[in-house]
C-alpha cells in the first residue's frame, strides 16, 4: 500500500472535533481551509479532502503487497517483540498479541468484502442476495479460517485441517501450513529452535475465533517434514464454554 493513504487515515482519525491545539495547527498548516465551508471545526482533513470514510474498502482488494517490504516489516516486528523478553514463550506471546487485533479487523473486512461481491454478482438476477452467515459452529469457523481468511492473507488456502484424534482433547483442532509466508525469510538460531515466528499468524487466528465468540488459545508449532522443512501446525484449543455451547447447538440441529 502506498504511503499517502496511510497518512490520510492517520490525520482523519487521530483528531477529534473541538480540540484547540489541533485547530490552531490546522490554520498554520493549511491557510486556505477557513474559506471552505467546514461543518466540523477542528477536524484535520488531508489536503486531498478525503477521509478514510471516502475511500472504498474494495479498492485494494486485488492489490498485492511487495514481499520484500512485508519481510522487512515483519523482521522489524520480531525484533521489536524480542526486546526485554524473558524467553521463547514470552516472545511468542508478544507476537501473538501483535496479531490478535489484526484478526478482529480482518473478520469484519472479510465479511464486508464477501457481502459486497455476492450482492453485486447477484444484482443482475436480483434473487436473494443474502450475505454470508456468521459462523455458529466450530466447523464452519474452521472452514472460514482455512479457506477465505487464508486466501485473504496469503492468496491460497491452508494445507490441512484436522481434528485431534486423542479422546482427552476433543477441543483441539489443527490447521497446517506447509510453507508459511511469514517464516520464508526467517532463519531461527539453533539455540532457539523451539521458536516459530508464525505465532503472529496464530494471534490472527485467535483474534478471528474470539471475534466470532469462540474463545480459543492458538499456538504455532514446528513440524518439519522432508519435503516441507518449515511446515507449521497451528493448534487451536477451544475453551470449555465453546464446547458446551457446541453440544447445545448440535442437539438443536443448528449448522
Amino acid at each position, binding site marked *: 500500500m502506498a504511503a499517502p493513504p496511510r497518512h490520510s487515515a492517520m490525520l482523519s482519525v487521530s483528531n477529534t472535533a473541538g480540540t484547540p491545539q489541533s485547530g490552531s495547527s490546522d490554520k498554520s498548516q493549511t491557510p486556505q481551509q477557513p474559506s471552505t465551508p467546514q*461543518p466540523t471545526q477542528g477536524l484535520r482533513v488531508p489536503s486531498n479532502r478525503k477521509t478514510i470514510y471516502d475511500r472504498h474498502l474494495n479498492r485494494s482488494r486485488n492489490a498485492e503487497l511487495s514481499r520484500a517490504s512485508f519481510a522487512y516489516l515483519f523482521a522489524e516486528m520480531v525484533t521489536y517483540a524480542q526486546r526485554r523478553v524473558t524467553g521463547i514463550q514470552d516472545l511468542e506471546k508478544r507476537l501473538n498479541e501483535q496479531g490478535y487485533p489484526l484478526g478482529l479487523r480482518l473478520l469484519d473486512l472479510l465479511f*464486508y468484502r464477501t*457481502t459486497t461481491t455476492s450482492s453485486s454478482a447477484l444484482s443482475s438476477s436480483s434473487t436473494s442476495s443474502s450475505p454470508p452467515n456468521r459462523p455458529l459452529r466450530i466447523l464452519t469457523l474452521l472452514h472460514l479460517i482455512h479457506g477465505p481468511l487464508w486466501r485473504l492473507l496469503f492468496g491460497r488456502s491452508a494445507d490441512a485441517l484436522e481434528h485431534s484424534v486423542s479422546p482427552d482433547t476433543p477441543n483441539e483442532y489443527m490447521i497446517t501450513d506447509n510453507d508459511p509466508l511469514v517464516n520464508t525469510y526467517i532463519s531461527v538460531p539453533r539455540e532457539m529452535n523451539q521458536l516459530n515466528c508464525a505465532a503472529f499468524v496464530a494471534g490472527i487466528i485467535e483474534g478471528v475465533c474470539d471475534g466470532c465468540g469462540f474463545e480459543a488459545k492458538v499456538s504455532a508449532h514446528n513440524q518439519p517434514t522432508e519435503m516441507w522443512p518449515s511446515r507449521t501446525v497451528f493448534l487451536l484449543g477451544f475453551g470449555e464454554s465453546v464446547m458446551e455451547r457446541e453440544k447445545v447447538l448440535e442437539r438443536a440441529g443448528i449448522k
Partner: protein
Amino acid sequence: MSYYFTILSPTDTPIFNIAFGTSKGGGDGIARFRFPDTAQYMNQFIIHSSLDIVEEAQWTNGGMYLKHIDTYPPAAAYISAFLTPSGARFLLLHQPPQLPNSGSSGGLGSSSLLGSSGNLVARGSTSSIAANPTSPQTEEAVRQFMTEVYESYVKTAMSPFYKQGMEIRSPVFRTRVTAAGKKWL
C-alpha cells in the same frame, strides 16, 4: 417515526449513539419520542434490555441482520438488531408517531397492497415504514440502513488508531450515519 440508534461493543460498552427522526413523507429528521425530554434515558433503557434476546438469537440465526427482535409495548418501541461478525451490536429503536393523524396512513398502506396506481404505491410504501414497524418494507429499509452503517463501521475498525471497544467520535462517521438514516428511514 423517531429512531434511536446505538452501537455496542462486544463487551456491552456503548460506543456510538444517535437519535433522529424520519425524513420520509415530509418528515424533518428530528426525533420526537413519546417520552418527555427529561426521560430520554428511557430509550437507552429499552434498547439495552433487548440485549438478552439478541444474545439468544445470535446462536440460532447465523445472519448478520437479525430483523425486528423485540417490542416494548408500553412505549410502542420496536427494536431491530444487526450483528457484525466481530461481535459489535447495532441496535435500532423505532417508535411510530403517536396517533397517526386522521388514520389515513393505515389506509394508504393497505391500498398500496392492491397496487392501484404507481403514485399511490410510492406514497403508500413511504408511509407504511412509519405506520407499520414490522412490515417487510420496514425490515428491508432497516436492513439497508444497517448495511450502510456497517460499511462505515468497518472503515472505522480498519483504522490503525482504532482499538475495538473504543468510542467512535469521528464527526465524519456521525455524518455518514445521519445520511444513511435520511436515505432509508
